[in-house]
């Protein structure tokens, strides 16, 4: 049911098939056909689309903040309590705000990005406990191995690894790509090198040299990237997943996690969330510069990418 929160009703958007940039991401591996009939607040909201509570509050239970509606704790789609640890007090405040600010009539499914992401984090953590129900795990696509393999595919054709021809936009786009991407790629190679015995070299796609073709990384790179994914906590994995799906870039996920981690980010990977968003949409920035924004497409997607990246950043911060 989480999907209902993460994207808006596409059926109501007839222009969608024309949209060149589909940025709305749904979690990988969610079985859309399965009815989820657990009695939880998030499911009830998703099904009825109506506000059914009066008061939203935060309860401090010693180690965690619980989000409560009329003094009943909100449950995630899989029936776990919606709670964040006390180091994430600002996140708790924002979660409360999300529920307080919902208009009472016809709640739209895109209104709760933070709740959606935090629910995914909590549910992933719970279905990956040793004695958890494998059926539940399958239901939300919560198998770690599976998620990691799906995410690795994004490294092959990463947004930050694809370079446009020199001739395009009088070379402006290529210049911007070289300036932005090359240092990041070098730093990520170094960063992934920690997880491998041999130095890592990322394969890039240069449209001038390679033309149109697919791309795939070497086995060492994949192994190192996989090791990196295995080193992540389940919360970080869910955040990483959200970022990768939004930006279509594995590297942007690394950037985001590095910048929100408690200790200082690895050398050369310091960046703000805004510049992550810009790196992920560099080509669109140049296109809209030249041709103008298409209504109901570029303006909506610009906000969508940013709100999702920022939401991931906010959840990642401790």
């Amino acid at each position: 049911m989480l999907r209902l929160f993460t994207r808006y009703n596409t059926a109501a958007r007839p222009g969608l098939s024309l949209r060149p940039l589909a940025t709305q991401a749904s979690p990988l591996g969610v079985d859309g056909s399965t009815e989820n009939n657990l009695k939880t607040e998030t499911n009830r909201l998703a099904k009825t689309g109506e506000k059914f509570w009066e008061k939203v509050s935060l309860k401090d239970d010693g180690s965690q903040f619980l989000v409560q509606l009329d003094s009943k704790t909100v449950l995630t789609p899989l029936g776990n309590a919606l709670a964040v640890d006390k180091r994430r007090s600002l996140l708790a405040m924002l979660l409360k705000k999300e529920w307080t600010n919902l208009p009472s009539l016809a709640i739209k499914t895109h209104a709760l990005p933070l709740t959606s992401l935090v629910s995914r984090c909590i549910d992933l953590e719970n279905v990956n406990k040793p004695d958890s129900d494998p059926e539940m795990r399958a239901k939300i696509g919560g198998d770690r191995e599976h998620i990691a393999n799906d995410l690795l595919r994004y490294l092959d054709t990463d947004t930050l690894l694809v370079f446009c021809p020199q001739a395009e936009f009088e070379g402006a786009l290529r210049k911007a790509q070289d300036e932005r991407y090359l240092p990041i790629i070098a730093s990520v190679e170094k960063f992934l090198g920690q997880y491998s015995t041999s130095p890592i070299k990322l394969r890039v796609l240069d449209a001038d040299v390679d033309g149109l073709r697919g791309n795939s990384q070497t086995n060492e790179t994949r192994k190192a990237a996989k090791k990196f994914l295995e080193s992540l906590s389940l919360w970080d994995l869910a955040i990483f997943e959200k970022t990768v799906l939004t930006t279509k870039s594995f590297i942007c996920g690394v950037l985001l996690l590095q910048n929100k981690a408690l200790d200082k980010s690895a050398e050369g990977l310091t960046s703000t969330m805004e510049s992550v968003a810009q790196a992920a949409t560099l080509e669109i920035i140049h296109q809209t510069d030249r041709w103008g924004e298409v209504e109901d497409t570029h303006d909506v997607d610009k906000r969508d990418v940013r709100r999702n990246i920022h939401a991931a950043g906010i959840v990642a911060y401790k």
Partner: protein
Amino acid sequence: MKQAARAYRDVIRAMVRGDRRSRIAQRAEETRKQIAMLTYKRMNIVRQQNETKDAMLNASLFKDLQLLNRQVETLKRDRAENDKSLLFVRDTALIRDSLLQERGDNERLVQHLHDIGSFLTNQREYDELIERYNGSSKLSQEETVRRTAGKVGLHVPF
């Protein structure tokens, strides 16, 4: 310290804008409900008036009716957009506390506050755009059905 103050201000500003929008919507919904309730009461009084022959009771019912009418008028005149109290944000204690704990010189926290501000702004703008381009999504289910039927010249039979 200056940067922290600026970040704090940004977040509060984004919060006020986002909150105000949804609070206006919530207020409108509340008013709608209250008016429906008062209208129902009014209907009951009119029914009572028709049934009774007692002049005294009739006079008091008339008074009640007038009172209800006045209440409905006041509710209809209520403009949430002009309400100054919506320009204040209620729960800022957590942000202030976390800033004070860090003594305001933590770069990471300041950056985080900027992110929160951007998140709130982008979320609000996104909602506004979706609403603008999909105007009908705000209508209730009955209203949507009624309008769809109306488009092809039919009437919904209730």
